[in-house]
């Protein structure tokens, strides 16, 4: 009984620690700019207003940044999922020279901090005249997300019994048809995780975007929100409102793909 009570109290404390910062951001977003300095732990007060939200939408370039971020994150997701799903399949199913070396090189790239790659990326992109260009960001975000995505997809493909592909081949499928009619549909949990990871890694990225994008019209949400900070007067209310809205697309994406995140999709296909 004591053990159970202790567990419940611990869970409750962790829940408060996790939820309170979010509630506090909501609270700040509803207050005036000086409210951040307030000592009160109160979330909602009599002075709460949606002023910051209306200002965010109608007096800043927030919608433009949102559009830019959506374009970049969607394109990165499409490129990463397309490339990871196909290359991981080849790495999972075909034995060829240098296969293991390739797999471990992909893993090796994950051992460097992303900021180390900024300089070489910048040099490459400037030679390709892709600095200050969305295409440059697509390339960087996709290539940095790919190693994890490929490993993730390969690990899933490895669990799919080969007999399914052999059955499809005997049924008359070509290699490509086997892949998209049989393998891809049953890989939806891994595809969903890969898509979510790619989307989130580009959606909230700041450092690379700050180096590559200089034109304010191309700013993404993290860059735009950063512009609310100034050395003397940071607009914390706007900042908090923006931060909350930024999290909404990720939440929507997560909820829409949650139904694919179920285990046991291959259940019943083979004896086990």
């Amino acid at each position, binding site marked *: 009984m004591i053990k159970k009570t202790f567990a419940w109290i611990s869970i409750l404390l962790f829940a408060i620690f996790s939820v309170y910062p979010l509630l506090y951001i909501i609270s700040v977003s509803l207050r005036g700019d000086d409210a951040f300095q307030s000592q009160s732990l109160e979330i909602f007060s009599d002075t709460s207003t949606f002023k910051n939200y209306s200002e965010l939408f109608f007096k800043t370039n927030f919608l433009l940044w949102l559009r830019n971020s959506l374009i970049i994150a969607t394109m990165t997701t499409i490129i990463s999922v397309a490339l990871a799903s196909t290359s991981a399949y080849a790495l999972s199913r075909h034995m060829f020279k240098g296969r293991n070396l390739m797999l471990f090189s992909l893993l090796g790239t994950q051992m460097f901090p992303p900021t180390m790659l900024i300089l070489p990326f910048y040099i490459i992109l400037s030679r390709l005249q892709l600095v200050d260009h969305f295409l440059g960001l697509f390339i960087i975000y996709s290539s940095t997300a790919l190693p994890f995505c490929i490993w993730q997809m390969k690990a899933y493909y490895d669990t799919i019994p080969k007999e399914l592909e052999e059955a499809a081949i005997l049924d008359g499928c070509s290699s490509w*048809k086997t892949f998209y009619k049989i393998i891809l549909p049953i890989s939806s949990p891994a595809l969903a995780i890969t898509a979510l990871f790619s989307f989130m890694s580009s959606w909230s990225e700041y450092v690379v975007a700050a180096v590559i994008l200089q034109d304010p019209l191309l700013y993404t949400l993290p860059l735009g929100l950063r512009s609310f900070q100034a050395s003397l007067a940071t607009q914390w209310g706007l900042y908090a409102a923006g931060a909350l809205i930024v999290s909404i697309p990720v939440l929507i994406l997560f909820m829409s793909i949650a139904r694919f995140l179920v285990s046991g999709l291959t259940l019943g296909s083979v004896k086990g």
Partner: protein
Amino acid sequence: MIEISQLSKSFGTNEVLKSIDLTIQDGEFLVLLGPSGCGKSTLLRTLAGLEKIDKGTVKVGTKVINNVDPQDRDMAMVFQSYALYPHMTVAENIGFALSLQKKSSAEVAKRVQEIGKLLQLDQLLERKPKELSGGQRQRVALGRALARQTSIVLFDEPLSNLDANLRSQMRVEIKRIHDKVKSTMIYVTHDQMEATTMGDRIAVFKDGKIEQIGTPNEIYHHPRNLFIASFIGTPEMNFIEGTIVGKVVGSATGTSSVLGLRPEVLKINLGELGPKEKDLGVYQIELSENLGGELLLHGHLVEDELKQNVRVLVDSSENFSKGQKIKLKTELTRAHLFDKQTGARKAI
């Protein structure tokens, strides 16, 4: 007709199939039987085109199919695992190959209904594989193979994961379907009961080679060597080692030989011997196993100095006790003689 000649297949340095020669007639039900790792499944996969042939040829009719893609071989296969497409319903699984052939949806639906009826799956067509029992899944796998109406259907140990009851039901079902559809069926199993009950002919494999091909009766009653004699038949044949004394056709006096006697050909000698029967002397019972309708006695012939184990199948209504001595007899025409060194069958 399928003609396999001099077919060899290796995985690295391991030669799995060694110069296989085999002819399978149209409409035949041929069983490839052998212990695990003997190459029978590899031969089936090679026929299907899922493994490349290293040496030799495979002909279907007059056409050599060595380099023909699996999807163009006019063969369907039922896998050892069910290999059902988990994201498709039973109907979609069965009709998948037909829709790939660009058949109209009405045609596909009609064929799916026919197969559903044939295999008693018509109530389950809208279910996914995970909602089915093992036996139902196996029937769907069978239905998927039959839907294409190929001239050859390959089975790779399809019943190995089912319980004994379901297995015997499915055996009958597959045999019934073979009689109906008349396709050539090649069936791999390590279960000799499946082989003898289903096959028109059985090819017994050992170490990548075919040891004997014949009808179930030929294999059972005239095993070519010791391996086949021991592999076919439950309970296993008795082997009594000894030396030839006196005159035996085809064996010189003093040759080391093995006498093979199936448990069911050993009878209790109550004093009267039939014209072809021979007295085997006194037998001492060491233990008995009750198999239901029959008792399987384990013991040895008292005169045998080596006290080699001899099994005798008797009616379970009789009572026998441990240590009891009885007299045995047998028909010599139903005995088998093998060379001890080579294991080859000898005339008796």
